[in-house]
């Protein structure tokens, strides 16, 4: 597709469960970013990849959060032992070397 694609668009899970969120970036974009957005706040940086490697993972809140991008294209954000405080919209973005971010529509995670 032409834009950044994220699945699922909505995910409802129970506290303690494991969740995976997927991002398919724009073809050819080497940089991929994950952000988290809570109500009334701006996107909060989690991690970014340059190719297959995590160039900066300083925003991951704790070791329950992990992300991979094994072939330098699709990325998966993994959250273990989910907590109610993890409820948010998770945004993925990709960029060309020019630096402009192209966002997906987000995955809304609700932890009951």
């Amino acid at each position, binding site marked *: 597709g032409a834009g950044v694609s994220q699945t699922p668009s909505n995910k409802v899970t129970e506290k303690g469960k494991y969740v995976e969120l997927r991002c398919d970036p724009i073809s050819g974009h080497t940089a991929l970013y994950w952000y988290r957005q809570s109500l009334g706040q701006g996107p909060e940086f989690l991690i970014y990849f340059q190719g297959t490697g995590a*160039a*900066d993972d300083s925003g991951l809140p704790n070791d329950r959060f992990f992300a991979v991008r094994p072939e330098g294209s699709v990325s998966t954000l993994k959250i273990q032992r989910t907590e109610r405080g993890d409820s948010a919209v998770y945004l993925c*973005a990709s960029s060309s070397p020019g*630096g*402009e971010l192209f*966002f997906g529509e*987000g995955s809304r995670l609700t932890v009951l």
Partner: protein
Amino acid sequence: AQRVTQPEKLLSVFKGAPVELKCNYSYSGSPELFWYVQYSRQRLQLLLRHISRESIKGFTADLNKGETSFHLKKPFAQEEDSAMYYCALKPLDAGKSTFGDGTTLTVKP
């Protein structure tokens, strides 16, 4: 550390009035500044960036390094400008973009 502050959560103006959305930043290196916009039921998208020095949809923004500001301005607001606006900073060489908490602009008829 990078920090972006948007002091106004909500801003409301009448159609045809001038509008200014404020953005202040702190960063010790050379920054690139962006404005992103999110219209109702659409994804976040780039509005403009300081490096290109363009006017997009009548909006302009000037980087003021002395005041560490990048305010967004439009002389005559239109109803279709109603949206959520986010200011963002990225280091010039590489790295993550840091966003402010956004300003919701409402343009009343």
